[in-house]
């Protein structure tokens, strides 16, 4: 940064007072898309971390792999010794597994949202982080889809939920919200993976061209013989457009359908008409926070301050603030209605949540989701400071996991008749599986970061091609070719 930036805002010369060269330099420092470098340099910056296995790689893989292994082993235990090893009981029959399922699918929502919606809106700060976002989606859906399987009493009969012609001549029950859930989750998994793959092809071709060894073989398989003719690019763009629209249609429906698992019941606390948008808002909220965490970690660890700059963190931060406000709005809806109506069962749900055995989780959630972001994210200083954003985002993750936990477990503990009010305590099995799932996602990132390029280089190059510095009077502005 130049000296002029360190001085207080009133003392800094305005941009118009600086010379053209100074202005150009400032713009290049701040904005990725005017800071064009030769293609070879960009390629090297992205491919070098992919090829280099640092000192921390194997220990990280070891620890994460161990956690993932404990996840699978615990699941195996549970299939052998049955669901009784969890903390579930007669009243609270859905708990941490379902909460994890909803939470992880929620994170997955924002990945494709960032990639698809921002592409349609032509917002440029999505360019370097699209792949990280889409990969987050793919891993999170995969991990989350395993949780409904884990929570089944007879997991080995899970295939009965799939619609296919079978000897029993029975089909699944399409009246049931769980089947809508299954359809939506699998649709989202399939389409997100395809979307991710479509976006990956040109970068895999790039890796195929410039690396050696087994990564070259892998990337050449992934690249499907991509050469970059104008026809291929045109098809890619049209396919991306259709996919963006399609995924934007699927994405809110997925989390809405997940919310229907709860809203379709007549359980007090769950039977709420606002659950659809409420869950979607929470999902995007947690997902944006997860993308921020991933972006910051990759920027720090791979020395990518060229690609991921303040402008990207700032953009993500504003988006986070926006989704935080939307979440606050929907949460307030879901709160004020039962509070005001004072219907006895719903009132009891609120009481249990706020003052009963759910109070620790509840107040932590409010602090992490509503209070902290509201009082920090308005300032650019906070949004561009990576330790602050990392801390806020991690707190938001915790807060939203607690929100799902409260909805699933605490609400379910308050049934219609008082004889059926029950507590739930998670036991070792559920806690191990939750940490294992998160470890799985992180492990996926760590491993894949050594397999494929993690910055969407062709989009960055395209952006740098389209955005140029244009002179107006004595100043320079960034101008984009449409």
């Amino acid at each position, binding site marked *: 940064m130049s000296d002029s930036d360190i001085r207080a805002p009133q003392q800094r010369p305005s941009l118009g007072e600086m010379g053209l060269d100074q202005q150009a330099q400032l713009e290049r420092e701040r904005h990725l898309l005017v800071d064009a470098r*030769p*293609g*070879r340099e960009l*390629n090297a910056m992205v491919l070098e971390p992919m090829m280099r296995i640092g000192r921390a790689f194997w220990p990280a893989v070891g620890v994460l792999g161990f956690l993932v292994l404990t996840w699978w082993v615990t699941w195996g235990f549970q299939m052998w010794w049955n669901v009784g090893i969890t903390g579930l009981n007669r009243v609270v029959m859905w708990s941490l597994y379902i909460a994890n399922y909803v939470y992880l699918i929620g994170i997955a929502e924002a990945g494709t949202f960032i990639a698809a919606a921002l592409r349609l809106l032509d917002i440029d700060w999505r360019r370097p982080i699209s792949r990280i976002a889409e990969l987050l989606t793919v891993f999170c859906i995969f991990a989350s889809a395993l949780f409904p399987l884990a929570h089944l009493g007879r997991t080995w009969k899970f295939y009965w939920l799939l*619609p*296919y*012609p*079978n*000897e029993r*001549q029975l*089909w699944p*029950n*399409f*009246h049931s919200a769980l*089947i*809508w859930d299954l*359809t*939506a989750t*699998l*649709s989202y998994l*399939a*389409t997100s993976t*395809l*979307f991710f*793959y*479509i976006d990956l*092809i040109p970068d895999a*071709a*790039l890796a195929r*061209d*410039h690396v050696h060894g087994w990564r070259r073989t892998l990337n050449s398989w992934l690249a*499907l*013989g*991509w*050469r*970059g*003719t*104008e*026809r291929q*690019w*045109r*098809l*890619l*763009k*049209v*396919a991306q457009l*259709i*996919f963006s629209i*399609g*995924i934007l249609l*699927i994405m809110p*429906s997925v989390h809405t*359908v997940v919310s*229907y698992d709860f809203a379709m019941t007549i359980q007090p606390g769950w039977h709420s008409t606002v659950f659809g948008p409420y869950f979607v808002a929470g999902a995007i909220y947690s997902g944006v926070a997860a993308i921020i965490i991933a972006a910051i970690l990759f920027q720090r660890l791979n020395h990518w301050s060229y690609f991921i700059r303040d402008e990207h963190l700032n953009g993500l931060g504003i988006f986070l603030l926006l989704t935080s406000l939307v979440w606050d709005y929907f949460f307030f809806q879901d709160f004020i209605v039962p509070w005001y109506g004072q219907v006895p069962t719903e009132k009891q749900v609120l009481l249990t949540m706020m003052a009963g055995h759910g109070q620790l989780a509840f107040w932590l959630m409010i602090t992490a989701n509503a209070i902290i972001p509201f009082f920090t994210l308005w300032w650019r200083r906070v949004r561009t400071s990576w330790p602050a954003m990392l801390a806020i985002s991690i707190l938001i993750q915790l807060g939203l996991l607690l929100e799902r936990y409260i909805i699933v477990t605490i609400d379910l503990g308050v049934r219609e008749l008082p004889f059926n009010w029950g507590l739930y305590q998670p036991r070792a099995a559920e806690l191990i599986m939750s940490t294992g799932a998160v470890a799985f996602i992180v492990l996926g990132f760590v491993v894949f970061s050594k397999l494929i390029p993690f910055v969407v*280089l*062709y*989009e960055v*190059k395209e952006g740098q*091609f389209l955005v140029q510095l244009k002179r107006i009077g004595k100043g320079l502005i960034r101008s984009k*070719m449409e």
Partner: protein
Amino acid sequence: MRGFHDYLVLGVFADLGRAADAVAALRQLGIPEERIRALSPFPVPTRAYPLPRPRDRLALVTAVGAAIGFLLGIFLMVGTANLYPLDVGGQPLVPGPPSIVILYEYTLLVMLTAVFFAFALGIRTPAYWAQVYDRRLSEDGFGVLVGLTSRELEPAERALRASGALSLRRLDEAGLRPQLRRWLGRQISYGLWVSAVVGGVLAIAILCVFAYGGLQWIYPDQMVTQQSVGYQEGPRLAAPTAAVPIQGPVLISGQPATEPLPGTAASRERGANLFRNHCYLCHGNEGHGNGPLAGYYSPPPADLAGPVVAGLPPSEVFRVIRLGRGVMPSLAESLTAGETWDLVTLVKSLTQSPARTP
């Protein structure tokens, strides 16, 4: 690319302007646009090159995919509900709002999957025929790929160099063998797609054979063998004395259970019929314990004409027939009380006159 050509030439240029000049020069030489391709490391606006906008059929594929998905959803909601109608919660057989959810999801799923396959087919993948390429095309080089006849080769290469090509690569495609390889590569590539589709259809067909045809796959299920002791299953512990049954008479050793029927000849004849149906297989024609199945049991079936059975009071015989004993199953399910008394009459008559066959 299609079209008759003998050579494939790739020119690499340092920037977009020079590449566009090269394309214009090639067009001026009279080379048709189907044989010219422009390559770049990132998407550029198509108007940059004097080439027509590439056509794609993705819009059509989208529509067709959406229609197929919609029909699939209709089948699942309406078809499957009517194939096996079940009443759940008083909801209509084909519920309205849930149908919308399912139709929506399946429409989008099949639509996007179809678009992906159309895209993959459209970028001509996987390509199993010879390609000409340069690594700089994924750095910052712009390429122009042109298919040339032998007559066009010289002037085209000159034009490319004149526009500032950094390098030229040539692939010799003339002759039957390269053409054949090319054709074969394309068939393999399409063949892969076709077999994928055929594979999917075949999988569904096999499932249907299992579902509606004669093939069966029997696998053990958990609740087939039950811990409870079923009807005519043994061995059973003897009921403790003074045990109270759920239904039926109280059977206390030494005391008559129900009012016994008089041992008339009619009763004995009914008993004889019943003996043939229920008792003969183990106890044999004359009740000596030598029926066709007697050898399978250990201990063997009792000799009903023998002294042990002769010493039992009628109520005890009644009790044994009702409750079973050891390996002998309970016959309470198969006989009413009256029929059991008829059998008691018969058994007692076996001991009295062993010579008479039932």
